[in-house]
C-alpha cells in the first residue's frame, strides 16, 4: 500500500471549531481510498466523529469522490481539506 507521506489537513467551519485548529500535519499511506483517508483524519481528531457522515474531502483544492473505491495517490506536501456541508450564497 505504499510508503507513508506527510500531508497538511485543513479544517473549516464546524470542523475547525470541533478540532480547535485550522490545520494539522498527518502521516498517511500514500495510496488510499478516500473513505480510509477520512477515517485516518477522524481517528486523529475524534471530535470530528459527530460530523463523519457529512464530511467531504478535497485534495489540493479539488473535491474527491468520498464514495469512490478508487485509490488516490498522495505525496508529501499535499493539502487535504475536511469539508463540512457548505452554505455559501
Amino acid at each position, binding site marked *: 500500500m505504499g510508503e507513508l507521506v506527510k500531508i497538511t489537513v485543513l479544517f473549516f467551519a464546524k470542523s475547525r471549531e470541533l478540532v480547535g485548529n485550522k490545520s494539522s500535519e498527518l502521516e498517511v499511506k500514500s495510496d488510499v481510498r478516500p473513505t480510509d483517508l477520512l477515517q485516518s483524519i477522524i481517528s486523529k481528531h475524534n471530535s470530528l466523529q459527530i460530523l463523519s457522515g457529512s*464530511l467531504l474531502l478535497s485534495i489540493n483544492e479539488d473535491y474527491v469522490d468520498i464514495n469512490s473505491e478508487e485509490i488516490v495517490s498522495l505525496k508529501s506536501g499535499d493539502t487535504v*481539506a475536511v469539508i463540512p456541508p457548505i452554505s455559501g450564497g
Partner: protein
Amino acid sequence: MDSVDVTTEPISVDHLTQLVSSPKCGAISMFLGTTRDNFQGKNVIQLEYEAYEPMARKEMQKICAEIREQWSVENIAIVHRIGVVPVMEASVAILVSSPHRSESLAAVEYGINKLKATVPIWKKELYDDGTCSWKQNSECCHVSNKHANTS
C-alpha cells in the same frame, strides 16, 4: 472575461455592473444574495462567512467555464463576501452580460444554484438569543442525509 473573487469588502453593485459591461451586449443579469433578518422564526443579527479561499476561487472558475459551455455570454463576475455580513447587505453577487437577454438570465440562475452546491464557503447565523448555527445548503453536494437548512 471571467472575474471571480472572495473578499471581506462590501460588494459594490455599480462596480460589478461596469466590470461586466460590454458594447457588444444588450443584457446584464444579476443575482444578489442578501442577509435576511430571520430564519424559522428566529431573529438573525448577522451572518458570518468563512471560505476555503483558493478552492472557492477554483470552483467559481469552474462555474464560469460551465456557463460558457451552455450559453453564449460575454462577461461573468462572481464575488462572495466573507467575514461578517450585516442584515440587508449582500453576501454574494453573480453578474453575466450577453448580447441577448435569455442567455444572461439563464446563466445567472445556473451560477447561483451551482455556487450553493459546490463552492466551499460556510455561513454561520448569529441569533438574538445568543445562539448560533452553521448552515447547510439544500443544494450542497454532500452525501449526508441530515436535515438541510435551506436559505
